[in-house]
């Protein structure tokens, strides 16, 4: 058993980055995510493992530092909150085009614009539909506990390098700010330069005599080549869709209705589920762990099982609900409930929405 600690979600993510053998973190403070860089600066991983921690001059600089370091095969991470993540979108599109493995976290707050510093889940579209330009995807992991804030850092780095893709930990103000018990995994040693050279033949590790140049770029003015590159990217996303869907089913065996939720809303919906079951309503919970890839097949299996209706619970005006509708494809009723703009819905409100909007609506 690993080390047991009481930590904030943001702190657990920062500590996990050190332990996952990250080579660098580049960031810029913003509420409700600032504890990540605060923790790293206080913990001095440059003394513990040699990991670099740098406060960049802006979010834009930070994501481009990630591009550079990731391109050389280093395990590199950044994090921010909604307005800061919007600034990073250009860099993320370039990272997708250049197939640079990296990890970043968005501890979402209410928007649009500067919005509020309170929790929100209104960055779903930006996260799963591509916030930058071009046909691209990134793997999106949605932690629902402090434990997962830590565990998904290690998983995220592994997936990033397995597929040469950006992995996003999509969290929010609740999961980032709350403290829970967390069991920390043991230190993974950082890779040596020699190991990187051997393992990642694409990485720009310095040209040796007699070897070919390695080029990391998203640019190709030959459109036929660019189309081919896009086909390659799409094949990769298809592979990820086939292999990396993650979810959790809670109380769905005898369910007539199902809550679909991720992150803090999944925790809240679990309580709503308990409240509804006390009233005799058979409701279960499909907790999404990956948002891309989306568990379409699992939702179809639930339709086969005879589920009458799905309530998408998210702190937004209704974003994830669209993917639920696409998956259900008219075979059951789909409705949405959520408070937004920085308001967190209560378990009682969600339970009431189940009765009034989904069942009675």
């Amino acid at each position, binding site marked *: 058993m690993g080390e047991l600690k*009481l930590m904030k979600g943001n702190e657990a993510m920062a500590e996990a980055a050190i332990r996952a053998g990250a080579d660098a973190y580049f960031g810029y403070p913003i*509420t409700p995510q600032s504890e990540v860089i605060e923790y790293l600066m206080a913990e001095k991983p440059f003394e513990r493992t040699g990991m670099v921690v740098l406060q960049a001059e802006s979010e834009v600089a930070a994501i481009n530092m990630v591009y550079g370091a990731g391109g050389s095969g280093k395990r590199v991470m950044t994090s921010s909150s909604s307005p800061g993540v919007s600034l990073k979108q250009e860099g993320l599109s370039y990272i997708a085009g250049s197939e640079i493995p990296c990890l970043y976290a968005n501890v979402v707050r209410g928007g649009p614009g500067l919005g509020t*510093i309170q929790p929100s889940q209104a960055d779903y579209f930006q996260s799963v539909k591509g916030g930058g330009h071009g046909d691209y995807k990134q793997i999106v992991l949605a932690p629902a506990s402090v434990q997962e804030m830590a565990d998904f850092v290690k998983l995220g780095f592994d997936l990033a390098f397995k597929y040469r893709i950006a992995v996003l930990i999509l969290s929010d103000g609740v999961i980032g*700010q709350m403290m*829970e*018990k967390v069991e920390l995994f043991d230190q993974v040693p950082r890779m040596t330069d020699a190991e990187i050279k051997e393992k990642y033949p694409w990485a720009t590790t310095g040209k040796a005599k007699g070897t070919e140049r390695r080029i990391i770029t998203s640019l190709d003015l030959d459109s036929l080549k660019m189309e081919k590159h896009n086909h390659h990217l799409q094949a990769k996303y298809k592979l990820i869709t086939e292999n990396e869907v993650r979810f959790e089913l809670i109380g769905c065996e005898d369910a007539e209705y199902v809550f679909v939720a991720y992150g803090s809303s999944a*925790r*809240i919906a679990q309580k709503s*589920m308990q409240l509804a079951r006390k009233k005799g309503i058979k409701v279960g919970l499909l907790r999404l762990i990956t948002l891309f890839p989306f568990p379409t097949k699992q939702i179809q299996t639930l339709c086969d099982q005879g589920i009458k209706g799905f309530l998408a619970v998210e702190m937004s005006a209704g974003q994830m609900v669209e993917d639920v509708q696409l998956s259900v494809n008219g075979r059951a009723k789909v409705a949405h409930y959520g408070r937004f703009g920085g308001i967190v819905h209560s378990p009682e409100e969600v339970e009431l929405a189940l009765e009034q909007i989904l069942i009675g609506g």
Partner: protein
Amino acid sequence: MTEEIIIAGFGGQGVLSMGKILAYSGIMHDQEVSWMPSYGPEMRGGTANVTVILSDERISSPVLTVFDTAIILNQQSMDKFEKSVRPGGILIYDPNGITHHPSRKDINIYQIEGAQVAAEMGNTKIFNMVILGAYMKLKPIVQLEYVIKGLKKSLPERYHKLIPLNEDAINMGMKHIKPYYLMN
């Protein structure tokens, strides 16, 4: 067994750290715990509150609107959270600075003169530990030995010499809590 608590007062009263000590004690007790603070500008000089859940089972929502116990340390928090106590639940408050006392008849209400007791002990900083002691008297879900273990774990070593003072404050809280209104 699950205990859902809200602690609410002014920023600087030690509301968040009291919640943290409770959470640590829960861990020492092998319980599942969650600690969800209010965060942002409202903490600085304004109101601060924290939701703490201690449970033998996996905790679902860390965000709650109904609580088994409310510990209320200023008037704004009384206005906001008196109505959030579950019928049959407990409200503990420090009457210092309270102008509108709680009036519910479906909960048990207790007073603890935390500010006064801490001042008499010569250290206003241990106010939150007096309040914690009062709570522990009513809800033995958290035992003193685990709180001390939790303090040892959460405080940097250089502050460990203050643990006996904190223990005294807890004992004073246990001694001074008194009923204000009890249900039949």
